[in-house]
């Protein structure tokens, strides 16, 4: 135990470890905020689809050889989010089918491009990193760290500003619309925030695992808490806790950081479900 602590403090002597830790926690916080909305609006599948789109865009960016691939990834993901949301409400192809098409298509195109125009000698390593996150959070560049930090702050601020509006649009969109809330605009804002979260989250846990970061804390919190505010607060705290734990564990045991965080989220979900069952069991 003492050895672990010395190990950890040695790691935290390094500035880039501290930065990475802060960014990881910020990303986890952002991801958890919109989880409730995503789950209850049946948008979970959009989150999943978007992360695949982001993967495809990442591959395109790598092939084009941009120094900052966010210039392509961010706009493409945001546009896809908006399009998916529009098709979700009224389209000839049903929402979930459209998502499946786009996401699988983006995966295939992304993988194809990465193979045809390899940017490094280790193609499968690159693919793996994009899908499952940096094998170690230490490989984040300082530029990426700042980028993530700024965007996280913007996301959290936007969430606070639109909190009541997000609630009313999620709870009863028809009522909101009928009484004059611009539900369409707020859906759009929600979609854009989700897209931003997915893109910044890719750095931490990769495009395949980012959905877990969004959905698990909210689902866990919903086992125990009954109001929108308490569920939101609980899932934020839970997400921050699980990701800190995950990052520390991955440093100590040299495991992939994304997978470690998601597994700690899963454990939390298990514990919360058990407590939930226990509580309702007692009441009945």
């Amino acid at each position, binding site marked *: 135990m003492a050895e672990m602590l010395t190990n950890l403090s040695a790691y935290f002597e390094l500035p880039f470890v501290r930065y990475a830790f802060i960014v990881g926690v910020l990303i986890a916080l952002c991801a958890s905020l919109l989880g409730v909305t995503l789950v209850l609006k049946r948008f979970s599948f959009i989150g999943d689809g978007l992360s695949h789109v982001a993967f495809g865009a990442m591959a395109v960016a790598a092939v084009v050889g941009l120094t900052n691939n966010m210039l392509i990834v961010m706009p493409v993901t945001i546009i896809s989010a908006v399009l998916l949301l529009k098709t979700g409400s009224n389209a000839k192809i049903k929402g979930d089918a459209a998502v499946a098409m786009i996401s699988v298509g983006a995966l295939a195109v992304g993988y194809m491009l990465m193979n045809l125009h390899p940017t490094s000698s280790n193609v499968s390593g690159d693919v793996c990193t994009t899908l499952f996150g940096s094998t170690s959070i230490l490989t984040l560049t300082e530029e990426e760290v700042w980028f993530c930090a700024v965007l996280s702050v913007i996301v959290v601020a936007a969430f606070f500003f639109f909190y009541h509006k997000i609630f009313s649009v999620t709870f009863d969109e*028809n009522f*909101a619309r*009928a009484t004059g809330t611009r539900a369409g605009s707020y859906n759009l804002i929600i979609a854009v925030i989700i897209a931003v979260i997915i893109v910044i989250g890719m750095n931490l846990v990769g495009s395949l695992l980012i959905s877990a970061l969004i959905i698990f804390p909210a689902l866990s919190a919903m086992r125990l808490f009954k109001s929108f505010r308490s569920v939101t607060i609980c899932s934020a705290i839970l997400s921050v806790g699980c990701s800190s734990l995950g990052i520390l564990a991955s440093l100590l045991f040299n495991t992939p950081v994304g997978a470690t965080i998601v597994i700690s989220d899963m454990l939390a979900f298990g514990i919360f479900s058990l407590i939930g069952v226990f509580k309702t069991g007692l009441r009945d």
Partner: protein
Amino acid sequence: MSQLTCHELSLGYEGREIISHLSFHVNAGDYLCIVGENGSGKSTLMKTLLGLRKPMKGEILTGDGLAAREIGYLPQQTVVQKDFPASVWEIVLSGFQGSVGLRPFYTKAEKRTALENIRKMGIEDLKSRCYRELSGGQQQRVLLARALCATRKMLLLDEPVAGLDPLVTADMYSLIDELNKRDGITIIMISHDISAALRYATHILHISDEIFFGTRAQFEESKAGKTLYRLRKEEKSWQKC
């Protein structure tokens, strides 16, 4: 001038008209019941009145101090609401969303009004309870309190007693009647329940092959009204047997 005037409306979807040439008007303080068979287009009419969809033809005008977005709305319950983690207080307050614009928080005055509406509905002790754990009748009262936060003038109620037991149904009707009589709120109610419509409403809109609009007394004299009356009496004598 009437609060709400519908002029020569045609409603439908995908190019197929289900209601044509619908004209009626609602004055302040009226209690209008919209009755008709399933599939006659009652819900489509409701959505059009709320501005959720556009009519194929015709127009809807508001007046007498009522703005188009000032109509409170009690929806039929949707699936999303049933497992939503939300407290009664959060839901009632969200009724103000239409009028707060970009302001991120609720004002003290809004919170006070929300509390008043909660009291009016007799659900003060449920304020911090979770919506999904309430009974059907309690949930309807919560949504009614929310609708009151969105309007002081007109309420649109979509099947407000669907799925409620007879006792709670009677409570709900007298609550709505009170809002109409005491607070002077105009009521537009969609209902299956002809007997309640004939008991409380001042005006009836009957949507069928032929459209009837008029006062309750006129409806009782009309062909559709007489048929419905007869059916109802037969039903009652049936129940007695």
